[in-house]
């Protein structure tokens, strides 16, 4: 294995960025390699600052940013291996998607034939093959987002950075773009994707980076991070016609350390070991002979995790 292949695509070491008195990013260190990683956080968390640092748009006030082991501020060579979709970037509306993507392919040094063939392939990949000869100005928002993804993929990058790629898209376009992102992750590309829409990040990946007020709150697998939050027990919500009877059956089980009745017909079980609680669940329900109509894990999702981490829930 070469030295280059051992180096993670993205390395940030003690990176801070101040805008005057305002802290954009505060002492962040992380390394990302392979698969899809969701970058999450509320507005002002530092997601855009992080991407601008990665794209060499701003220089870190402190620390170092490395893409494939190279500082992108002083050397543009990593961009040969990076595809970037900006949130706000405008496109050349007078061009057709085919012309636009092939023109940008030539900015990477492809020949005309290579650029045209590659543009056709990536437009096909994002589902725009049939309309590739239509002017971009006539495209819907979702189609424009897909053109952005196509132009970011045209040179077959190893690292793809997508800043709010689902922003403003209709549900069909979102589904299509999410499929594209998942497929890129399956291909072994390193994909960094930011979004405010937590459910959609959940549908794309379990690997997340959570930022808040410029600080790195969490990094890793969504469920592994959730398990680390001991002070916030997991909750299992059971809808039943006899919640008190079911509660008395559950309370003696080891993984369960508390029960609540948040509203009529509902039982909330509190546990620190979600999988163990789920393993005893069927037996207890059957033995208690209570009718259960629904079982939920209301806080086993990204939104709850984000809430716990930033103290909003």
């Amino acid at each position, binding site marked *: 294995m070469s030295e280059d292949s051992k180096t993670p695509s993205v390395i940030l070491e003690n990176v801070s960025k101040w805008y005057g008195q305002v802290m954009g990013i505060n002492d962040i260190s992380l390394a990302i390699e392979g698969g899809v990683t969701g970058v999450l956080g509320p507005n002002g968390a530092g997601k855009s600052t992080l991407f601008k640092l990665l*794209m060499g748009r*701003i220089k870190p006030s402190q620390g170092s940013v490395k893409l494939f082991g190279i500082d992108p501020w002083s050397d*543009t060579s990593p961009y040969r291996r990076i595809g970037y979709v900006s949130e706000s*970037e*405008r496109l050349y509306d007078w061009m057709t998607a085919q012309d636009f993507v092939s023109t940008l392919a030539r*900015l990477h040094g492809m020949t005309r034939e290579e650029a045209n063939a590659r543009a056709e392939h990536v437009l096909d990949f994002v589902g725009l093959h049939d309309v590739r000869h239509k002017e971009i100005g006539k495209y819907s928002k979702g189609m424009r987002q897909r053109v952005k993804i196509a132009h970011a993929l045209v040179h077959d990058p190893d690292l793809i950075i997508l800043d709010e790629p689902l922003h403003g898209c209709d549900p069909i376009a979102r589904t299509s773009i999410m499929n594209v992102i998942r497929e890129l992750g399956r*291909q072994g590309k390193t994909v960094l994707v930011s979004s405010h829409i937590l459910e959609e990040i959940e549908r794309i990946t379990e690997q997340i980076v959570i930022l808040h007020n410029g600080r790195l709150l969490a990094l890793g697998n969504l469920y592994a991070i959730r398990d680390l939050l001991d002070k916030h027990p997991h909750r299992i919500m059971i809808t039943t016609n006899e919640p008190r009877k079911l509660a008395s059956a559950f309370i003696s089980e080891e993984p369960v350390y508390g029960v609540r009745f948040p509203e009529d017909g509902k039982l909330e079980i509190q546990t620190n070991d979600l999988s163990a609680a789920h393993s005893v669940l069927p037996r207890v329900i059957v033995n208690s002979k209570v009718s259960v109509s629904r079982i939920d894990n209301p806080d086993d999702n990204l939104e709850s995790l984000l809430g716990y981490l930033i103290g909003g829930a």
Partner: protein
Amino acid sequence: MSDEQINLDGGQTRMEAAYGSDDGDNDSSAIVAKKEASLGAIFEQNYRPWDGNLGPRWVRNYAIFRHHVFGLFTSKGHRHYNPFVRLTILVIFIGAISPIAMLFFSSLFGAGPDSFIDKMWGINRSNLWGQVLGYFPRNLCYWPLLTALVVGGMISDDRRNGTSAIYFSRPVTRVDYTLMKYLSVAVVLGFVIVFSYMAYYTLAIVFKGEGWGFLIDTLPMFLSGLLCSLLLVITYTSIGLALSSISQSRFFSAIAFLSIIYGTKLVALLIDLQFETSILYILSPYDCLAHLGQWLLGLELNYSHSLSLSVVSLIMMNVISIMILISRVSSLEVTRE
């Protein structure tokens, strides 16, 4: 109705078969869509890696250059120039080469060296200077308008639309970006100004059937004029691109360029008329070039101030313009710094 008539293996339901039937008057059986008919489609997202080699720096830079220059001829895959802009550039180019037509007529009529046509359009010091630096119509109408139209949106469009991010998220340095924009403008201006000058000189020799002696006599003058035309292209490109880089509007950069060229000239002219001093012409890019051109071509100088002041002013204009250009491009897409 038999199973062959409704082929369930083909994915057709009985309801769909019923929808496919006619009114039933002639035939009691349903007409079933063919087995291969499609009622929907699932798109496979099959990403195919690319294993080619990306080209070197000069190939990428050439892509930027051709994007801007070829856009004058076709917008397909290139920068968009308004058809009116293209038409105006064509008219200016035709205007710039119009003396060639007069020389052609002169050669047809066999006009002598002292004829009116030859004095007006033949090869001599004044006409070589005038082909590049003559005030009317070239420096009053043609060259400033041409520059304003070409540089107008060259960087300001990127600034307004954020399309410079398209370049800077690729292995294109800001130096490459600036150089290629500069070269693109200079080549378009050069094609109209320098090429028309060279064509004028070359075709004058051809049409008049001049020999080597004439060529040797006039070549130094021609080269002086050529140097003037290159300096004019460089100066106008520098000023125009600097203005384009500080604005987000192609109109502002175009009108600001015209204001600088015409405004400085007008102010200097008024001061000259009122106080009989030409010193303020050092503020006018055109007059600095005209002054230098007169000296290079051995013409009588129209300006009372020292030539060195015009040369220094010209250098300063270019240096300041390029510094502004570099500074503004350095800050492009670099946010809140």
